[in-house]
């Protein structure tokens, strides 16, 4: 038990260390000591530092810092959703998007880009809102298609997810053809980016993210038992259909919230659970929090590359795919038998 806590604490501490390093990397060079002074000043620990320009302060506190925090929570959320889906569907190929969340969100975003432009609803940009609604709605529909009585067979769930995904992708392609003038905005969105995510976006995501982690942790024992098969789990006192429902509901909402602000960022939700499982084993109680931190670290790292490697911003979804693919292949090659 102590060992577990140590691993979780270690993953959290390495995440914090990583965040500090990433804060000092960027297109604009800022001295490390200056960064510390800027943060201390904002916290009120030291008086106004007039030798650091206002624009440098803005870059650190309002551009870089919220973006790093956003990448942590988006990455963490995608990773725990991946853990939950892989366990729930007993499918090592599962990622947070397997039931069509990405297509739903992309379709929602497309509708907003094409028809609503820059409109805000209740202070939330319509693109974030429709992406979120699209993501959650798709899982709801997929779930109800797959449902037979009170049961939700995994195979039907997966198949209806794939069918819905393909269908929505086709609808989106039609819209892209008809509204060619918005093409680059739509494609840009679907490639995923954390560029320009400010505090408002971070603050809107954190509650979802943490609540999702809490719910999944609460269900971690049930999820462990369900790995033995639904019937065995039921015999051990787990209401596996209810757990399934709760997990689907939770993951779709938190993934929807993450995708709504970041666009579609692939690979994090697929490879992080596998990589972490190699070190922690399959118990969800430890797998979930460590994956959250590992997913956060991975996305932080990729996003730092995305914003600093060349002068133009690279959509971070491209970076995760380019780094994630070979990394995953390496892991598979090294630890073939232990991956799942």
């Amino acid at each position, binding site marked *: 038990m102590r060992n577990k806590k140590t691993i979780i604490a270690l993953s959290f501490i390495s995440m914090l260390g990583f965040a500090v390093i990433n804060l000092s990397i960027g*297109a*604009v060079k800022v001295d490390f000591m200056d960064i510390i002074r800027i943060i201390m000043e904002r916290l009120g620990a030291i008086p106004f530092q007039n030798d650091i*320009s206002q*624009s440098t302060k803005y870059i650190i506190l309002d551009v870089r810092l919220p973006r790093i925090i956003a990448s942590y929570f988006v990455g963490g959320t995608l990773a725990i959703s991946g853990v939950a889906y892989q366990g729930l569907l007993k499918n090592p190929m599962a990622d947070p998007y397997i039931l069509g969340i990405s297509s739903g969100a992309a379709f929602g975003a497309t509708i907003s880009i094409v028809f609503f432009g820059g409109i805000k609803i209740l202070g939330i940009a319509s693109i974030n809102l429709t992406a979120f609604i699209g993501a959650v709605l798709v899982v709801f529909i997929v779930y109800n298609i797959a449902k037979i009585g009170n049961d939700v067979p995994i195979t039907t769930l997966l198949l209806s997810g794939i069918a819905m995904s393909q269908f929505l992708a086709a609808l989106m392609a039609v819209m892209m*053809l008809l*509204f060619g003038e918005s093409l680059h905005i739509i494609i840009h969105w679907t490639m995923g980016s954390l560029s320009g995510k*400010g505090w408002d976006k971070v603050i809107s995501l954190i509650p979802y993210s943490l609540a999702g982690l809490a719910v999944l942790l609460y269900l971690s024992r049930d999820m462990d038992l369900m790995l033995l098969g639904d019937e065995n789990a039921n015999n051990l006192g787990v209401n596996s259909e209810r757990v399934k429902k709760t997990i689907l509901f939770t993951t779709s909402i938190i993934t929807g919230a993450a995708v709504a602000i970041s666009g579609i960022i692939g690979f994090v939700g697929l490879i992080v659970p596998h990589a972490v499982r190699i070190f922690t084993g399959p118990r969800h109680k430890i797998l979930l929090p460590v994956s959250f931190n590992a997913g956060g670290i991975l996305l932080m790292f990729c996003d730092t590359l995305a914003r600093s490697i060349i*002068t*133009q*911003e690279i959509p971070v979804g491209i970076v995760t795919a380019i780094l994630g693919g070979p990394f995953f292949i390496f892991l598979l090659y090294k630890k073939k038998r232990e991956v799942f």
Partner: protein
Amino acid sequence: MKKLMAFVLMFVLIFSVVGCRNNDAQTTTTPAENTESTSGDNAVFPLTVTDSSGRTVTFEKMPEKLVSAVPSNTEIIYALGKGNQLVGVSVYCNYPEEALSVNKIGDYNGPNLELIIDSKPDVFFAAWLSEEVLAQLEGAGIPVMLINPTNLEETYQSIQDIGDIIGSSKEAEELIGSMRGKQENIMQITKGYQAKTVFYEIWHDPLMTVGPGSFINELITMSNGINIAQDAESAYPEYSLELLISKNPQVYMTSDDGFKTPEDIFGRAGYENIEAIRNGQVFMLHPDITSRPGPRIIDGLEMIAKAIHPEAFEGK
């Protein structure tokens, strides 16, 4: 593979056709009531300008440090004689040559926020920004002008707006005057000839062309040409070979983007049925000149007009 091509195509479109978003908002310049001139230049500050997206931006004094994320805006600023005030341009700003040596702040789709803020511009000219990036620039106190003309008239307006903002109103008026003069001249001398049917290839696989709402469609029409795709559904529609052959255009134009040669076009299956191909009427045009809504768009108009009605320009 299809997807990859779609990405490539997207980037080609972005490189060359900056400014293809529909916008009903007219750009207008209204000097503020307070007409106290605060600069030696020929504009009046404070100045309130409405940009292409309908946002109003107020300039208290004449901006000195300029950043442009769009090639056309960069070309306009140079044409108005204020290129030396640019402290940041996009990686695609390749004209005039001086622009190449200005600091780069990213591209049209991925402007680098940190670099823009760090260069402390008094105004940032862009065409499109995501809602988040826009909010952050405004948060950093940088005035942002989204300039995204969708036709020639709006291009003139955007030149005037930029001129007013950077204190070159007179230069802008002169530039627009000379552009209008050339435009009218071209329209005048091509008018007397029999209109010809034209096809403009944007991309070859899948075959894509220009439809209503695109810049090139407007330039073709002004050159007394008939774009065979002018009844298409969107500005950059896919076009079938069948339709191309049945419409049988007299002139075939395309962008000289390095992805094809005239030989490729002449050799395509089925193309021997097209009048333009049989008569050798294939023209490769420089995409930067025909598609950027800046000062050179008039040269683009002339190139297109000469391709359609070469006889009109003989001896001129």
